[in-house]
């Protein structure tokens, strides 16, 4: 019988050897990879969906004057990947679907301060206070509703009104969705922990129906299974674009701009602190904020442009300035931990 004494150390040795082998490989590349590796390609990690932003990023090479390489995955996973890579990352630019992932990287001191003329393009509400990231487009929380079930929709101006008895069992929401979490965070920030908890408990007592994502909520509203749904505005515009407005029963309703239910969240971008392409990376963000690209977001993805003077020519989008008058500091959206704990406590997971 082979002795356990023999194999256990062999195992440890094998592990050590494979690590050592890897280690020696690295040291040889650090010499070889040096300056020419970075500096000649702009590497972008994009948490935004390839279908939505590839047409934009494809034109980036021209704008920044160097080859561009884009890696796509979800924002949170890319943020985790960037945190694991640390200083060794080859990424120059992080293009995120939400402010939370950018906030986390900023907190870990992985983002550089952007050029001032870049940050100046974006209203204060939609950028980091220390200039480490800017929003590139916005989205608004809205109520999707079934006109047949909620003819009085115009009377509803805030989230407190969906706590009325008539909405018991008829609200759809997506408890595991990041944008729902952002809404709850906004609720906590605006009203304080106690009132937020009270609202969530009342909401839970309404027996809302949980769905897998915003699209599923919208489908349920459209099919009449629920009367109202808490979603982001652009899901409705996309559905209408895919199916035609006549085949979509659901409509959307904007809440009053000072209501936490009307939160404006953003997609945004930041430059990695260790970049060797600082100029090109800032240039890329400037490009994302150009009238041309802002128009693209407004017309193609039905998102809100964040720079002044751009309005969608395709979708009926109110200018952002008229919607988000009472915006919370988006950096506070990174207190997601407390939000998840609260949701867990009131049983909305």
């Amino acid at each position, binding site marked *: *019988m*082979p*002795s*356990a004494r*023999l*194999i*256990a150390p*062999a*195992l440890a*040795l*094998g*592990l050590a050897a*494979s*690590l050592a082998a*890897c280690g020696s*490989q*690295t040291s040889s590349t650090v010499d070889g990879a040096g300056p020419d590796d970075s500096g000649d390609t702009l*590497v972008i990690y994009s948490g935004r*969906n*390839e*279908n*939505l932003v590839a047409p934009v990023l494809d034109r980036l090479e021209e704008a920044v004057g160097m080859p561009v*390489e*884009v*890696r*796509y*995955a*979800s924002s*949170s*996973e890319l943020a*985790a*990947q960037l*945190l*694991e*890579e*640390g200083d060794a990352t080859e990424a120059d630019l992080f293009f995120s679907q939400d402010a*939370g992932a950018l906030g*986390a990287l900023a*907190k870990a001191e992985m983002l550089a301060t952007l050029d001032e003329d870049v940050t100046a393009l974006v209203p204060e509400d939609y950028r980091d206070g220390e200039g480490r990231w800017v929003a590139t487009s916005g989205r608004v929380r809205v109520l999707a509703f079934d006109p047949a079930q909620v003819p009085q929709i115009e009377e509803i101006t805030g989230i407190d009104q969906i706590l009325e008895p008539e909405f018991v069992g008829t609200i759809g929401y997506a*408890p*595991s969705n*990041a944008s729902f*979490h952002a809404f709850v965070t906004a609720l906590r920030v605006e009203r304080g922990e106690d009132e937020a908890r009270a609202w969530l408990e009342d909401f839970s007592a309404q027996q809302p*129906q*949980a*769905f*897998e994502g915003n*699209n*599923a909520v919208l*489908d349920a509203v459209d099919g009449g*299974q629920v009367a109202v749904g808490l979603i982001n505005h652009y*899901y409705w515009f*996309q*559905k209408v674009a*895919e*199916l035609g407005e006549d085949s979509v029963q659901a409509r959307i309703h904007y809440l009053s701009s000072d209501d936490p239910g009307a939160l404006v969240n953003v997609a945004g971008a930041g430059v990695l602190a260790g970049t060797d392409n600082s100029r090109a990376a800032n240039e890329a963000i400037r490009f994302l904020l150009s009238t041309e690209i802002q128009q693209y977001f407004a017309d193609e993805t039905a998102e809100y442009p964040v720079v002044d003077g751009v309005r969608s020519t395709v979708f009926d989008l109110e200018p952002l300035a008229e919607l988000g008058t009472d915006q919370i500091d988006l950096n506070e959206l990174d207190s*997601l*931990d407390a*939000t998840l704990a609260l949701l*867990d406590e009131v049983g909305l997971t």
Partner: protein
Amino acid sequence: MTTSRTRRSSERPPVALVVPAVVAAAVALLPLVYLAVRATEGGLGAALEVLLRERTARLVLRSLGLAAAVTAACLVVGVGLAWLTTRTDLPGRRTFGVLAALPLAMPSYVAAYAWISAVPGIAGFWGTFLVLTACTYPYVYLPVVAALRRADPSLEEVSRSLGRGAGATFRSVTLPQLRPAAAAGALLVSLYVLSDFGAPSLLRYDVLTRVIHASYRSSFDRTPAAVLSIVLVVLTVAITVGESRSRGRASQARIGSGVARRPPTVALGAMAPLAVAACVGVAGVALAFPVATLGYWLARGSSAALDLGRLVEAARSTVGVSLLGALVTTALAVPVGILAARYRGRSTRLLEHATYAGHALPGVVVALSLVFLGVRFARPIYQEVPLLVLGYAVLFLPAAVGAVRASVAQSPRRLEEVSRSLGLGPSAVLRRVTLPLAGPGIATGAALVLLTAMKELPATLLLRPTGMDTLATRLWTETGSGAYAAAAPYAAALVLLAAVPTFLLTRTHRVAAAADAPVLTETTEGAGR
């Protein structure tokens, strides 16, 4: 012979097996290095705080409960279908035999999506249970079919001739012969359930993996995720040890005394319609429903403008990296599988269990661990195909190890002993006797890894070379932008491609069972002289 205990080998295992097996175990343990670093960086106190949260205990219980329920259901469905399609006069049993294996080609996140979008009320425990059972029972079904085909019917005949009824014979003679195969399949099922994120997340059943993901997503504080991942590793080790205990010491090989014959066919009689209904029901839930949903997506939307070149390119990458993954994983698995079957002892068990350690980790954790190690120690292959292939090896090694071990264990050790006594050295025996006998098992393991790697998403997303798309990543992109009609062709292509190795799996088992008998007789006769 079947009841005789296998002697523990008094021989040292050949170095030619031990060294590669140690390498395989080391590869499988890579994520643990990363997890240890991350779990302890906030201090032991922080780690303990996560560990002792009431929520952690609740999630462990939920994960275990789900795994136990799904595994039990898979055993019932898998063994039941295997018996119906191999031993009875079930009408259309050949077709059902293939259909029953095909759900393995269906990614659980696609099935989960199909169900939740059609039946929103299914969310929660029962939906998750249903989807995971439907997607994983073939892990039990396939090895049990193989075992049923190989099992010696003469034992059953003896039992019947001694007066036991059909039911009692099945319980006391057939089932024990199936136990190792069923247990190995059940192990894969339970570890799959523990590690899956897609289905529980879509179906909103809070289990450990969901919280691990949430922890990456929310605080970006990686300590909780690492601590909970280590909990998963501990659970995995416990389950693996439990399975290897349940495997028992009974020898699984048939030898010498007779040739495997076709077992007698059980006439279902009046039960036939019921049996057909059961087979149709399983195929409907596990296969027809998700496939129909894909068709519905395709028919409904207008985003269906298909870029055929892109689809072909993604399919080619999928096949390419999955084939490489299957090759490397199988190569690593063969020595471990042979050691585990032939040289049983504490140290070989340790090696075998080591290859399972990371199997219940969610793909994202394995991916991040390889990001962490790759960027520091293997820069040249970071975000290149080799690291992705290594990721597949870490994730899927146990599936191959299990298949190799089972098939070596089922081939008679005596053949090797005889070859030794006739003057062959240990490595020649390995090459000329053990490996050929293990052939079907090796092929099975490779096919299993191939089809699982095709469906893999989270690790592929993070480890793939920049710009490379597999069918799974394209599917993720299309559904992520709400373009379900555009997603459908990718999902369909993925299911079709994965169906090829799945179909081969049903064939290898048949061929293995058929080829088995003559080889055995011939060699045994030779040995007798």
